[in-house]
């Protein structure tokens, strides 16, 4: 379907035309990337998403069995462990991704909303993890509830967000905050696909200035596992005008 559909009518047609213009299929599901996308730092965003898959899967198993299950079942304890370690990996990869994007100044070229949705996803994830620690129904959760109540009460939210009320915290942890994190992460990924990967700071218009680039294909760059080791022989310098 063309992004320039002349016969797109009505709200639905206009919405489809707008979406296809902003995010055509080859941008949404790309099979190539700019040649400068060649570093292990690019792996960590995907690592965070992969960790999120395991967080949701293990969390579903835990919540469907109730908060007491993992205390009395060996399988429950193991599922709880996978939930914990996928959360730890999620934050590790997300923080490396965040710092990487900061030092790459990845907000350049109209990508501010991409940066901001990433930060919001990070902050919402902290809230989601915090409520998870409150749901452990053990000494840790008991103590965290006792400690954390003072900060929440001091700013006036403890009356509605009561850390010692298991029912409330369950709703926050398995419904509200996962929905928030999932929605913001989805928007973040869509924005990344719409805008493409930010080019190097002070990059030139094309690869024409690169040594060995004139009329030949460069040897493959040192790449992370997400890139193919095969460079495409696109015309170099064709977009300089």
């Amino acid at each position, binding site marked *: 379907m063309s992004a320039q559909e002349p016969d797109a009518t009505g709200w639905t047609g206009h919405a489809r035309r707008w979406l296809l213009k902003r995010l055509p299929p080859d941008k949404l*599901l*790309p*099979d190539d*990337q*700019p040649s*400068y996308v060649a*570093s292990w730092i690019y792996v960590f965003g995907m690592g965070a998403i*992969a*960790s999120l898959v395991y967080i949701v899967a293990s969390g579903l198993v835990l919540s469907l069995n109730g908060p007491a299950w993992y205390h009395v079942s060996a399988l429950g*304890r193991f599922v709880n*462990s*996978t939930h914990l*370690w996928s959360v*730890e990996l999620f*934050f590790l990869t997300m923080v490396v991704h965040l710092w990487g994007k*900061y030092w*790459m*100044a990845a*907000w*350049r*070229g*109209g*990508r*501010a909303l991409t940066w901001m949705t990433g930060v*919001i996803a990070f*902050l919402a994830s902290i809230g989601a993890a*915090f409520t998870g*620690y409150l749901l*452990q129904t*053990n*000494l*840790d*959760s*008991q103590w965290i509830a*006792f400690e954390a109540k*003072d900060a929440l*009460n*001091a*700013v*006036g939210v403890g*009356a509605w967000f009561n850390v*010692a009320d298991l029912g409330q915290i*369950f709703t926050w942890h398995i419904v509200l905050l996962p929905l928030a994190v999932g929605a913001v992460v989805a928007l973040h990924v869509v924005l990344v696909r719409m805008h493409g990967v930010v080019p*190097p*700071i*002070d990059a*030139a*218009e094309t*690869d024409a*200035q*690169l040594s*060995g680039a004139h009329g030949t294909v*460069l040897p493959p*760059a040192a790449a992370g*596992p997400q*890139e*193919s080791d*095969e*460079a495409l022989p*696109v015309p170099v310098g064709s977009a300089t005008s």
Partner: protein
Amino acid sequence: MSAPMGSRRGSDLASRPWAGRTRRYDLFKELAVGTAVVGALVLVLSFAFGSPDDRAITLQSWAQAAPADFIATSTAELGGTSDSATYGPPYNHTKDATQTFGPIDLQSFSGVRLPVDAARDFVIGPLSTTPSARAAVAAWSSADAAQRSSWAAAYAAALAKAPSGDPARVAAGSYGPVPALTASLLGMAKSGALDGAIRNERGSTSLDATRTTLFLGDGAYFNDLASRLHLSGDQWGVMNETGNYPGQAWLWLFSLWYQVPLIGNAANADVLVIGIVGVLSLLLLLVPFIPGLRTLPRWIPLHRLVWRDYYSKRAPR
């Protein structure tokens, strides 16, 4: 001229689709490989290290492990001198108990939405459900507030002077029904009945442990246990967890401020820390619009490591 470091969409290179060379890339393959690698890591870590699960403390385990502390805390609840009894909103109306920032008093905005009357909810109410303390409860209930305070204060002082705070070695004095009330409550707690009695105050199917948690926190036993496990606020608090686990390491910036004496010892420490973390979070969110912060990546060129391949192939200017 250097390319702009701001986020505004313009005519610069970062705003336009890349016109240079591309590399083959497979999004779904990367997702599949990434998911497999992370899955393997999760399994290895889970098998190798498991997860912490220290049993929760109950009023029963507290009473059995530290009866003197339990009696002293119950006396403080009766006398209205415990942390819970004097907390202020959202639990009760204690005057000047809130944390403020200048004239701003956010803690009072909610009013008393989770009411806690420590003497009634933690001691007298539960004892009213058992016949063994009927006479002591009646004596307490028929006394006026000043008399109750006087009894409780006298008994608290006597307990503090007794060897190891042992109620059996307290000197004789005018304590009214307080020793009988606290001894009955201890018996009730040791039997396990007190946990259920307090939780049932919010309904038999309640999942709300606010009152039990507050009562536990008023005693020394729970706090001492947390300190031994390196969980208290001056030991980086809630970012730690029991055992040798990473805990909520991402809360380090929050816990950090409590370790700064000027902030951690302030009467309004929680307000200050939440305010500081809130401002820092806002700065992080708005980095693309803040001159200086958004230019730092050019001044400290770590990006040259990320794109070292690209820069190394550039012809000298």
